[in-house]
């Protein structure tokens, strides 16, 4: 959910950096979205394309790397990756005392500018 406001935040951050450094145009942006972040990549791309018109990112392509959800079990120290967008229990010992170590990212990595 909230892909439109996330897209706006993204645009504000990259535009701000361009303004500060005198870049003329953004060609592409690389971001990573964790599968447990609640953000759907397709919806984010759609929203970004809708709002980038007439901005410094008007021709920018958005490249999204999806990060799988990984966890570390506090009970049995098993490190695991799941297919789903959330973890209910450790696949090894079925315990529910775990930490999510990856999969909730919503980060801008870098961008290609001219």
């Amino acid at each position, binding site marked *: 959910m909230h892909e439109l406001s*996330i897209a706006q*935040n993204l645009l504000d951050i990259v535009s701000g950096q361009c303004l500060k450094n005198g870049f003329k145009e953004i060609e592409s942006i690389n971001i990573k979205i964790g599968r447990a972040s609640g953000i759907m990549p397709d919806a984010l791309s759609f929203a970004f394309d809708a709002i980038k018109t007439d901005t410094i990112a008007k021709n920018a392509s958005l490249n999204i790397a999806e990060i799988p959800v990984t966890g570390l079990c506090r009970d049995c120290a098993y490190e695991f990756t799941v297919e789903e967008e959330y973890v209910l229990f450790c696949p090894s010992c079925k315990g529910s*005392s775990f930490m999510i170590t990856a999969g909730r990212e*919503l*980060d*801008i990595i870098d961008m290609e500018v001219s």
Partner: protein
Amino acid sequence: MKVKVATKILEANDRIALENRRLFDKAGLFVINLMSGPGAGKTSVLEKTLLQDSGLKIGVIEGDIAGSDDAERIEKLDAPVVQINTGGACHLDANMIYEVLSDLPLNEIDLLFIENVGNLVCPAEFKIGEDIKVMLLSIAEGHDKPLKYPLMFQESSALILNKMDLVPYLDVDIEKIKRDSLSLNPQLKIFEVSCKTGKGIPEWIEWIKNKAGKD
């Protein structure tokens, strides 16, 4: 030319959440983010809490898409309250909270409840600077909800199971709700409450007094 950005997209929200946290700490305030689906009984629980002689001076921030019904109910009980209308956003964010903090006497209250927008999904995803999250589930919502909405159950410190007076009229498996909730979050403190009869309210009050450091 490649330029490193290395920024969290929600960095602005998280930064403001930290500032809210700093202001709360400065005022010696304990802050609870109260969440649930629409109609589970958040405002009723707050009314019941305010009516008890807890010894705590309580303030409330109400969050709704529109209207001021909830703030009006709290105002009748003489607690400092401010209503946020999100105008469409389905959750409160850190900036919305920041904008209203100067409307509350932070130094005069011990405990601040932030009643989030009725929604079992989004509020759990956005930091606003609270100490803990407490969620409500009314038993009329069904015993399948914990496994359908895992994040909110996992993020909360306590679950208020409300409307327990309806047990005789519903085919709801209370033990399943508790079992599934605890399997998602073994540390979850569960209160069986009825705002209608008052059942469970004293135990809830003891717990928040303990949390706010006033027991």
